[in-house]
């Protein structure tokens, strides 16, 4: 299965490479009207990168403001709009579409040996819907702003906020439809377009992860859509289900919101797990340990993920009994996550490990995700959550999962499949340096926030009592380092596009159908439809020590 073209094949940077799907006569319409899943993935990558840096600017301003206890850089109102913008952009415009829409779009057909997704036009439409919704959201967030937090809690969002709530709701709603389209496309593709011989238990775990993610997208997003519509109606018509002054119940909103937004956490982390499951076996040169358990764990997370939303509401005034049910279920969802971490660790055993940039990102992912997951147990434990919820402990916890997990994996995936997507190699030294800077910067930013939270620093505070300043300052310094870490790849990856060495078809000597074809792949993906005869991650046994 490996078509071994060795890394570092002597070739000068100026040597022409076969541009594959990237080639052909360039016209704007050849991109904006394309039905090619690979080009659509690139379109997604461009849009998502833009949103990522917009959200990053908001984060930077927040961290600068919090360097001192007084609210002196921006006003309280601006601060509230900043953290709302940061949350809305990062959650809906970056994290949820990031890995599925960019890498899933690019790789899913390649990994299953298909020519394209099942519905190429739907795929393009979903990009347009995403960009329109995204632009709408950004407009609402910048022109006037929204100050409700990304959670839009009622009755603040419906009756008290004097900001662009309805516009922002509409933007998020539109983006949601894009998610649904992508989800339907992925599910049908995975079911109907697999190459001959590619049974379910020969699928790469990345495909499993995207499949489970798509199911969540399709089932959870419509609930959010209707909930946002109801919030909009309540705001416009002053009648509503969520305002106690009108006979409604704010907790009903919270139930509906978290019914989507907790599974949404798994929309963000499952594809990241899929990425780690591709990179680690490749650089350990061996089969992933416990493949079937890994696949079942993905499905388990997807299913149990729907049963735990109430753990966001332990102190919200929901019944004590409901708290107990949700707490127990939340502990259960930690099990498949733990299984995955244990299996990644076991995959390293008796491997032959090299530490290229993608592997550093993947190992960073495992470490940070482990910390994020274990601190999640504190929040699942009822009595502990009473003190910790709505403090910086929660902020730190979910950033360890979202940023330490998803973003780390997204960057790892970009580095791993960059040669596949562009046919070029980036500077390995810069890649490793950036991975290390991000890892250190991340921990410096967010580990102090665990301590802040335990000491009782509430989240979403524009100013704070002076005794919290030491830790906030450490966090802000870390954020500066983290920002450098995120800017670096933009530079050296961009540079490699023009000046990078040609990578050859399979620089990592990885298995998997996506590496069977040339890099970058031709528009039709495979010269001959592949037939699969071997299990996934079929790396040759390392045998006797050299």
């Amino acid at each position: 299965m490996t078509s071994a073209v060795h890394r570092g094949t002597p070739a000068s940077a100026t040597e022409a490479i076969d541009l594959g799907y990237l080639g052909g006569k360039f016209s704007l319409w050849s991109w904006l009207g394309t039905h090619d899943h690979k080009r659509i993935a690139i379109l997604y990558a461009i849009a998502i990168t833009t949103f990522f840096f917009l959200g990053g600017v908001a984060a930077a301003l927040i961290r600068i403001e919090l360097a001192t206890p007084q609210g002196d850089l921006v006003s309280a109102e601006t601060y509230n709009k900043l953290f709302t913008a940061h949350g809305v952009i990062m959650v809906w415009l970056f994290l949820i579409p990031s890995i599925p829409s960019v890498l899933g779009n690019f790789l899913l057909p390649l990994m299953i040996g298909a020519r394209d997704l099942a519905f190429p036009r739907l795929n393009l439409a979903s990009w347009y819907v995403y960009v329109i919704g995204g632009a709408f959201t950004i407009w609402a967030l910048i022109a006037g702003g929204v100050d409700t937090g990304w959670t839009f809690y009622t009755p603040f969002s419906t009756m008290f906020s004097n900001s662009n709530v309805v516009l922002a709701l509409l933007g998020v709603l539109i983006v949601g439809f894009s998610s649904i389209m992508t989800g339907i496309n992925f599910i049908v593709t995975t079911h109907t377009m697999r190459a001959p011989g590619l049974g379910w238990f020969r699928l790469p775990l990345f495909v499993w992860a995207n499949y489970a993610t798509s199911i969540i997208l399709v089932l959870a997003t419509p609930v959010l859509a209707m909930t946002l519509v109801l919030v909009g109606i309540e705001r416009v018509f002053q009648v509503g289900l969520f305002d106690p002054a009108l006979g409604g119940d704010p907790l009903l909103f919270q139930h509906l919101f978290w019914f989507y937004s907790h599974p949404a956490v798994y929309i963000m982390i499952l594809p990241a797990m899929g990425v780690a499951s591709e990179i680690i076996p490749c650089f350990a040169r061996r089969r992933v340990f416990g493949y079937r358990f890994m696949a079942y764990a993905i499905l388990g997370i997807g299913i149990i993920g729907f049963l735990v939303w109430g753990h966001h509401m332990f102190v919200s005034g929901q019944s004590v009994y409901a708290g107990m049910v949700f707490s127990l279920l939340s502990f259960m969802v930690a099990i498949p996550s733990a299984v995955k971490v244990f299996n990644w660790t076991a995959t390293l055993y008796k491997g032959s490990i090299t530490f290229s940039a993608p592997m550093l990102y993947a190992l960073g992912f495992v470490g940070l995700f482990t910390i994020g997951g274990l601190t999640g147990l504190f929040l699942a434990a009822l009595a502990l959550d009473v003190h910790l919820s709505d403090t910086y402990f929660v902020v730190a916890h979910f950033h360890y999962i979202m940023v330490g997990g998803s973003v780390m994996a997204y960057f790892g995936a970009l580095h791993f499949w960059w040669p596949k997507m562009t046919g070029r190699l980036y500077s390995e030294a810069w890649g490793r340096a950036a991975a290390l800077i991000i890892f250190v910067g991340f921990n410096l930013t967010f580990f102090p926030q665990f301590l802040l939270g335990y000491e009782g620093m509430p989240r979403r505070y524009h100013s704070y009592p002076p005794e919290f300043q030491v830790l906030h300052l450490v966090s802000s310094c870390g954020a500066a380092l983290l920002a450098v870490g995120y800017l670096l790849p933009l530079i050296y990856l961009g540079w490699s596009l023009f000046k990078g060495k040609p990578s050859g078809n399979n620089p990592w000597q990885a298995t998997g159908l996506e590496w069977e074809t040339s890099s970058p792949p031709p528009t039709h993906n495979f010269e001959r439809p592949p037939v699969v005869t071997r299990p996934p991650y079929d790396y040759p046994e390392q045998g006797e020590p050299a």
Partner: protein
Amino acid sequence: MSTANASAIAERGEPEHAATFALWILLATELLLFGPLFLGYVYVRTHFPDAAAAASRHTDMLLGTVNTAILLTSSLCMAVAAERARAQRSTQWWLSATALLGLAFLVIKGIEYQHEFAEHLFPDRGFAPADAISLDRLHGMQLFFLLYFAMTALHALHLAVGCVFCLGLTVRGGRQHALAVELTGLYWHFVDVVWIFLYPLLYLLGRAGG
């Protein structure tokens, strides 16, 4: 639309058309789109039982029942059309009948809305039913009518889209599109199923007094 390789799919015993499968997933999504409205309904029914019954008595049970019968009949026409399309027979008449029944439903629904607007039952600030005897009752009735309008309007929107599909198929002529008729049919029946639940939930409360 579909580029799925039909023979490869049949080999593995997957559904005959990727598009059919995709449509079913879309219907799953649609069901969950109605989910928050149904949960809101449960909230109103459990927290304001009397107000919900009082509000429901304001709806027009006769027109609602007639509309239900119309929609069920339209579903029969649609099912017959799909069956005929599978047998490669012409479907124009049946699809037109389906669309016409759908339009009739929408017209009747419009008449109901008109009456309800006239009675100030639209749940905005002007909401003022005569029998809202307390603030609690007023709130309950208002929430019921919020859900009534949200649910029936969303349903009517779906039905209107279905009518457009049906008429489009009629215009395009009868034969070589069994798949298109099949998909439109599935969608139409789903819209029917939603109404089958909306009818008792919205129209049949408190009809026996009390």
